[in-house]
């Protein structure tokens, strides 16, 4: 493997990692700001202009807080829990295409850490490992309430992963590929998948709310029933890791929604820009467009959080198993019929 390729990929990986971290960091700030604005308040405004240094201040506070360990049978697992949650949240960003290509130093640089042909499977795989972080953390806390929170989180994630996977199948039938890069390329122009698969999008959106443990599905944490939830016994930066992982996975799932359904880095007139202005400008604009979409979905997560109250647990299960899963199967059938009709029409020569 040539060294330029390795350097190129390392730079992309470092940049992607840094961007994910910064986005997650500022999501904590944005969440507080959005929450405040939606409730006619002002929100953090002391640390820096508009409270922009608030994440740094929070980080410093979390790092300098006392490290507390409950009398747990396994201290190792107690530390591993937040680490798993954090690393799975960060691992997913490896397969996301942030842009098409940049032409720099006489090379075509593909703006993606790695383009694997089973990217979707990889994402689902990594996401479902994330539940171990919560489960192990809840169990190692040696606290019944934490364990109950963890069990709730685990069963919720398992049930919603089924619907999520099924909703994806309809999309896969249409695109015929699992590579996120190819899915992005297919959506150039305004061929966004959301116009062809609105039901699939809706199911995917609802499931990603559940997968990231966000309101209205944040059953894993619940002050009035479980004291805190799976992270009751956590303090200092271990707690910070869990919260950070939530924001990182929120960023990732916003990215996945943008890439799968909203065209990723594509914007109307991109082809024209490439031909007339230049590859680099067009693609830098593409990255900006992708981030605009991501920011909108992060905002949407927060917007929903401050609008809809938390579901009851049986309502959550009802919605997951008895509504979303049948709906996604119906969606698969409809997609199948449409594709079949199309094929038959093509075969008969219409």
């Amino acid at each position, binding site marked *: 493997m040539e060294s330029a390729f390795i350097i190129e990929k390392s730079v992309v990986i470092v940049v992607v990692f840094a961007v994910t971290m910064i986005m997650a960091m500022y999501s904590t700030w944005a969440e507080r700001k959005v929450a405040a604005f*939606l409730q*006619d*308040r*002002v929100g953090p*405004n002391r640390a820096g202009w508009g409270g922009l240094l608030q994440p740094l201040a929070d980080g410093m506070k979390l790092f300098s807080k006392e490290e507390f360990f409950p009398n747990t049978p396994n201290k190792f697992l107690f530390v591993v829990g937040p680490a798993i949650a954090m690393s799975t949240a960060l691992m997913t960003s490896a397969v996301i295409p942030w842009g098409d290509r940049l032409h720099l130093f006489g090379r075509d640089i593909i703006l993606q850490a790695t383009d694997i042909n089973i990217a979707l499977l990889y994402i689902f795989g990594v996401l479902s490992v994330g539940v171990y972080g919560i489960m192990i953390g809840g169990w190692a806390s040696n606290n019944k309430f934490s364990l109950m929170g963890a069990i709730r989180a685990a069963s919720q994630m398992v049930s919603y992963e089924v619907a999520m996977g099924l909703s994806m199948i309809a999309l896969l039938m249409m695109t015929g590929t699992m590579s996120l890069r190819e899915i992005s390329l297919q959506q150039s122009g305004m061929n966004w998948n959301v116009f062809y698969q609105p039901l699939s999008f809706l199911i995917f959106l609802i499931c990603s709310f559940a997968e990231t443990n966000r309101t209205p599905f944040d059953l894993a944490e619940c002050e009035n029933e479980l004291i805190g939830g799976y992270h009751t016994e956590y303090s200092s930066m271990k707690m910070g890791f869990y919260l950070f992982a939530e924001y990182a996975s929120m960023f990732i799932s916003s990215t996945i929604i943008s890439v799968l359904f909203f065209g990723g880095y594509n914007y109307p007139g991109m082809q024209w820009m490439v031909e007339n202005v230049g590859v680099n400008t067009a693609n830098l604009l593409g990255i900006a467009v992708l981030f605009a979409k991501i920011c909108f979905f992060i905002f949407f997560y927060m917007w929903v959080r401050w*609008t809809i109250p938390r579901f009851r647990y049986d309502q959550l299960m009802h919605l997951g198993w008895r509504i979303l899963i049948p709906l996604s199967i119906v969606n698969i059938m409809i997609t199948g019929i449409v594709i079949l009709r199309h094929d038959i029409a093509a075969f008969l020569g219409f």
Partner: protein
Amino acid sequence: MSIETISLSGRKKVVSNKDMSFVERLYLVAIVKGLFITVKHLFRKKVTIHYPEQVREMSPVYRGQHMLKRDEQGRENCTACGLCALSCPAEAITMKAAERKPDEKHLYREEKYAEIYEINMLRCIFCGLCEEACPKDAIYLTTSKVLVPANYNREDFIFGKDKLVMPLEMAMKNAQLKNAN
């Protein structure tokens, strides 16, 4: 118009327990409506008061901490008649009267004065009835924004004369103002 349909406030609504239609049971419309309600607040004027820099404007009838007044010559008005304590619904005021000595004429206006005058700030409800009851214009509720400060000892919430009596300088200033007018 029958009595059942009259609505004085104009907001009367008849409760209906009709079954929800299919679209209503999807809740999606309701959720979208709710989202629009919350996003409207994103652009509203914020009601926050930035406290240390801005202070909320008090109501014109605001009643702050009590003060035992002095007259223009700096003599205490209070004669320890006990009417304030009698009118106090929270029974926060206690006092002990004493007789003025001949050499104390510059301190107290009348022959009787309050040797001890205490208000229990944990009980006081700042209703202002003491002020209304006082025949000698002695006790006043000021517009001071310094309310009862937090403390670790309950004894410190009992304000004695050291905290309640108007400072002499203030009485002097009042006298000067009165002369100027």
